[in-house]
């Protein structure tokens, strides 16, 4: 609800608000410019009479004097047949420059106030101000909720880079935008005559014509008594009429000055209403408060940034959720399915379950696990389908679940079943699902079915689970899951470098370039547009589907899409389906692949050293990091292979990086020749140096097989023990990252 009150006005009004904000920012320059070009005499130093005296010396036919809120003095005069407008210096009474309002500024002002459209445009601008107000308030509440309370609102915000940018810019600009929107809305209401725009005090011309000969203007008592800083406008009498007098408009009110006696007649003070209006006008335009104008202008410049980043966040969010047909509202559903997914594969299974239950006549509500409500009014049972992320942690759409579970009302009549998805070759297989199952049992809910786990997205295991659960709830469930394949790009092999072709497990470095789809099934764009690689960086993964399999295999990327080619290192596994397929490719062959981002596996930027540890083909992404080490962060590479002939990949490149300082140190070990040791042994030998680096804030990145990773973890735990820390603690700080397969 809160999110919608922010996203809806934001999406509707994005363009309108961007136009209003940018024009507003341009207009905010005016008061500053004016202020810079004026000299303002000290308060009390100069009276209006003094100024008129100085002007009389230089101008014959003065008709009107105006003082702008910024302090500039403008004289309207007619010399014979020539009319003119000059800006004058109050000290001397001489012209500084002819006063010509910039037509560009006038156009920008028109665009800002009414989108160049008169009254309908003013309505649009007013609507924009109202939307802005709604956005700032809802945005502030959202930020507070996300930070964990109003007190923590200034703490650093987590999330994707776009979300962090949006939050940071919003925090900077929110107060200025709130002020500009409120004052703007008030002014729009005034000009649309929804509230009465209190008029300035009027000059009441006296009923009788003045008697007596007009005196020189600088001698008039009323003008002598008025300080220049209070002046707004002084209108001289009509030249042909000796009975006419002066109209004086000041900050306090309006009055009529008799030309002969110099007395102030029929003075009318501005109403309070008017003073309020003028104050609000000043707050919005900055006229008279140039520093406020600058502040509002800068806040306004944030709006286009916020609009674009906000739209991107919305779009990504929308794309992440699959389309579920027939999704009942939470309070109306008998069955609730909550999903913990990192990469949308689990969502696919949830959708299959959702559709099957809906077809059987059930009312089902499906949502991410983070949206666990404290209470479901009509729900009888809860299904939880969740993956596990990294080392037994919660996937992104479930990271707040366990916290929310504490507020959940669990009763024994409420049944649940947890289904975990994972990969058995990982030690923490379905760890998060196990945790969730335990937590729900502890809450007092009844388990409909014991925790079940599915390995490698097997559709058969899923169907079996569905049948089992279906029997227990009395519904026939035939879960036929067809895994949805992500959109692939077509890549062509351009180069392969083989190592150890006579060994039993040769390694090869494969380089791919994007290529056109040759078959007619490709879209027009794919066929004729120059193909580009999807965006990725070293450290991300590429998913390749070998022919004859539905499950993709992932390989760590050694290059980034900026380089224009996709590079991976593949070791041929005995009996490996995908590795065998890749090893059989010849230059010119084409494959279909997709990118899976792994944004957590990257070195942090900054001054801290980076310790890169890898074995075998793990050297790929690590070399990629070194290649892109333009800022020359100190990088220490520890790598273990089998045999320098069979798998020392990237040897010439690494030597080059040593020379140009992208790599500080290179340590290699070989298990089947030379020292016959593993990489963790080498690390153990360098314990003292590494401990020193870690003490100074170094971070560790590991890439390689599971056995190596476990061995390295044990060794590092020993190394950092004297520092009273552990690998777990370093992981929590984001200084220990793994890409393990």
């Amino acid at each position, binding site marked *: 609800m809160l999110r919608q009150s922010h996203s809806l006005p934001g999406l509707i009004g994005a363009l309108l608000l961007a136009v209003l904000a940018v024009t507003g920012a341009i207009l905010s320059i005016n008061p500053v410019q004016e202020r810079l070009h004026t000299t303002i005499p000290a308060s009390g130093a100069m009276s209006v009479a003094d100024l008129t005296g100085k002007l009389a010396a230089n101008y014959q036919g003065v008709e009107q004097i105006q003082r702008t809120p910024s302090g500039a003095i403008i004289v*309207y005069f007619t010399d014979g047949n*020539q*009319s003119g*407008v000059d800006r004058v210096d109050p000290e001397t009474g001489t012209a500084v420059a002819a006063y010509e*309002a910039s037509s560009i500024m*006038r156009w920008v002002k028109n665009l800002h106030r009414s989108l160049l459209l008169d009254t309908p445009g003013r309505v649009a601008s007013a609507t924009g101000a109202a939307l802005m107000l709604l956005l700032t308030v809802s945005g502030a509440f959202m930020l507070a909720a996300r930070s964990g309370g109003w007190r923590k609102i200034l703490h650093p915000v987590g999330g994707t880079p776009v979300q962090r940018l949006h939050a940071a810019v919003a925090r900077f600009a929110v107060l200025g935008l709130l002020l500009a929107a409120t004052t703007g809305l008030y002014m729009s209401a005034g000009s649309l005559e929804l509230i009465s725009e209190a008029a300035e005090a009027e000059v009441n*011309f006296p009923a009788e014509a003045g008697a007596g000969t007009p005196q020189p203007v600088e001698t008039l008592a009323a003008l002598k008594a008025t300080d220049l800083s209070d002046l707004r406008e002084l209108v001289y009498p009509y030249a*042909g*009429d000796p009975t006419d007098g002066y109209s004086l408009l000041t900050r306090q009110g309006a009055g009529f000055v008799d030309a002969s006696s110099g007395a102030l007649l029929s003075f009318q003070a501005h109403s309070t209403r008017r003073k309020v209006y003028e104050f609000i006008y000043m707050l919005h335009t900055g006229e008279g408060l140039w520093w406020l104008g600058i502040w509002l202008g800068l806040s306004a410049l944030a709006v286009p940034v916020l609009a674009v980043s906000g739209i991107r966040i919305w779009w990504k969010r929308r794309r992440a959720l699959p389309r579920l047909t027939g999704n009942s509202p939470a309070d109306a559903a008998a069955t609730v399915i909550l999903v913990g997914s990192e990469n949308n594969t689990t969502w696919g299974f949830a959708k299959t379950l959702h559709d099957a239950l809906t077809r059987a006549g059930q009312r089902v509500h499906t949502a991410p696990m983070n949206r666990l409500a404290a209470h479901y009014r009509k729900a009888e049972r809860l299904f939880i389908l969740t993956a596990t992320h990294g080392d037994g942690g919660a996937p992104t759409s479930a990271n707040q679940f366990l916290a929310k579970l504490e507020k959940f009302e669990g009763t024994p009549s409420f049944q649940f079943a947890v289904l975990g998805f994972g990969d058995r070759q990982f030690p923490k297989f379905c760890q998060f699902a196990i945790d969730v199952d335990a937590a729900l049992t502890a809450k007092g809910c009844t388990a409909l079915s014991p925790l079940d786990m599915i390995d490698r997205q097997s559709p058969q295991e899923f169907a079996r689970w569905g049948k089992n659960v279906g029997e227990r709830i009395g519904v026939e469930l035939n879960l036929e899951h067809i895994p949805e394949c992500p959109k692939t790009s077509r890549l062509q092999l351009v180069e392969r470098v083989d190592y150890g072709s006579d060994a039993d497990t040769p390694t090869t470095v494969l380089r791919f370039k994007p290529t056109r789809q040759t078959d007619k099934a490709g879209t027009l764009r794919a066929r004729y547009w120059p193909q580009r690689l999807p965006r990725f960086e070293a450290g991300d993964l590429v998913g390749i589907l070998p022919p004859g399999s539905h499950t993709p295999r992932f390989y760590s990327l050694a290059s980034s899409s900026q380089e224009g080619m996709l590079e991976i290192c593949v070791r041929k596994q005995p009996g490996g389906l995908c590795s065998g397929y890749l090893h059989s490719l010849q230059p010119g062959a084409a494959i279909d692949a997709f990118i899976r981002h792994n944004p957590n596996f990257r070195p942090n930027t900054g001054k801290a050293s980076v310790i890169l540890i890898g074995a075998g083909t793990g050297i790929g992404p690590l070399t990629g990091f070194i290649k892109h080490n333009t800022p020359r962060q100190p990088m220490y590479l520890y790598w273990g292979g089998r045999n320098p002939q069979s798998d020392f990949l990237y040897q010439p490149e690494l030597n080059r990086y040593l020379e140009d300082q992208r790599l500080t140190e290179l340590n290699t070990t070989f298990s089947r020749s030379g020292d016959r040791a593993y990489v963790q042994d080498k690390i153990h030998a360098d314990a003292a140096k590494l401990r020193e680096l870690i003490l100074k804030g170094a971070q560790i990145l590991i890439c390689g097989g599971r056995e190596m990773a476990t061995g390295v973890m044990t060794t590092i735990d020993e190394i950092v023990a004297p520092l009273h820390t552990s690998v777990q603690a370093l992981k929590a700080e984001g200084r220990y990252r793994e890409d393990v397969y």
Partner: protein
Amino acid sequence: MKTKPLVFFLATALALPVLAEARPVVFATELSTYNGDGAYVALYLTDANGLYKQTLWIAGEKAKYYKHLGDWARGSRMRRAEYDGMTGASVHSGQTLRVTIDLDDALIDAGYQVHIDTSVEDMRDHRSEVVAPLTTEGAGKPIAGKGYVKSLTYTF
């Protein structure tokens, strides 16, 4: 027999004063090209001393801006009765305001003057930028203005 010329004479005698009372006068005010919004224009009559006599036409929609037509505002006190039914849209740069007013014959060739006040938003006001005597010989002769008005021409 003598009644026919008498009736004829009486009829013309009665009709002539009606014909002689007022005549339509066309005032064409051409604005020069200036860089700005639509101008508010006050077209009015004063006596030979410049004292306000009668409003001819006010071009401009919003009454709250009429105070910028300074001399007219002063003379007429901006009373509603003075300009009711004699208002129209503001005049844009380069446009010509053409109005036809029925004027008493007594006003022509009697020393009365036509004045024009103008005002443009965010630009200066011009009070009495055109002052033209209302005479039969002046008809058709354009008079230049000192501000936004390029020329005023009145014809009978």
